[in-house]
């Protein structure tokens, strides 16, 4: 097994970070790209933050797009972006930070299937900065889907 990098705690992860999920939900709710937000199963026991993106920003061939977010007390996270295409395909990718065997703690699962993994470098690991980077990357993806 490849050892996790030196900053890592043992090969485990903490519970979800309620405060960070609530902070991110407030931010997403006011983001121009976001239509609705939801904490699953509910705001008393948040386990997953899901944001549906504005459908009128997408071409008709893309039926829905959303970002699923988990943020852990160990400062690990996953941001999972998923487009549902009309032909039944999904186009997805994810920004991840967690102990793993494939490469560095901070890494990116490449689209379109999120199976190929590459190292990721982010300017800051603050939740608001990570959120901003992810949503900005999605906006750049949006520019491309119109020209495809």
């Amino acid at each position: 097994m490849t050892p996790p990098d030196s900053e890592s705690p043992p090969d485990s992860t903490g519970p979800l970070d309620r405060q960070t999920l609530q902070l991110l939900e407030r931010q997403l709710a006011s983001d121009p790209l976001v239509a609705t937000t939801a904490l699953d199963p509910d705001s008393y026991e948040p386990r997953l933050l899901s944001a549906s993106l504005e459908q009128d920003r997408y071409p008709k061939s893309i039926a829905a797009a959303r970002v699923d977010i988990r943020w852990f007390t160990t400062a690990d996270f996953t941001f999972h972006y998923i487009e549902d295409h009309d032909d039944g395909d999904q186009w997805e990718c994810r920004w991840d930070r967690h102990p793993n065997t494939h490469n560095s703690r901070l890494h990116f699962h490449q689209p379109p299937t999120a199976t190929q993994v590459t190292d990721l470098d982010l300017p800051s690991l603050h939740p608001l900065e990570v959120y901003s980077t992810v949503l900005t990357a999605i906006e750049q993806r949006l520019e491309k889907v119109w020209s495809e």
Partner: protein
Amino acid sequence: MTAFDPAPESDAATQRWQAGTDTFGRVYNVALGVTSPTAYTEIATLADCSPNAAKKHLERLAEMGIVRADVDSRPAQYERNDGYLEWQDTSRIADELTTDEIIDRVATLEAERAAYEDQFGTTDPTRVSVFDDDHDDHAVHERMTAISEWQGIIRDIRLYELARQLAENDGHLLPA
């Protein structure tokens, strides 16, 4: 099509969450995401304000109980006050849910906790590695989610138990 860039360098990225917020709002939001002692100068950079403004607002947030201050370090360091924020969450639950609803939720969570204890053969999730034997990437994600959820369940049970006490004491920590 060119490759997808997961971390585009753009001014829009850093400004994305800051639009329409005043300096206090930005310092407050940054502080809520700071989970280890962090120099106010660094918080100022994240909040896009002067170090003096950040320090002034952080001191106010410390007086309110929302952040914890370590003013003996140079420069002074601040972090989110988890104890205070947990109490706020607990207080909201005590306010919005009935005692019966809280008891129902605890019963459901205890059943889920028991299922995880069976699945992993221990009562302590911190002793379980997210890596299983075959190192399959998908399996790591699934285990990570499961272990995290298990830890969350244990914490939520404690939170609800505290909320029930608050509800029974009419919102007070101690009986009158």
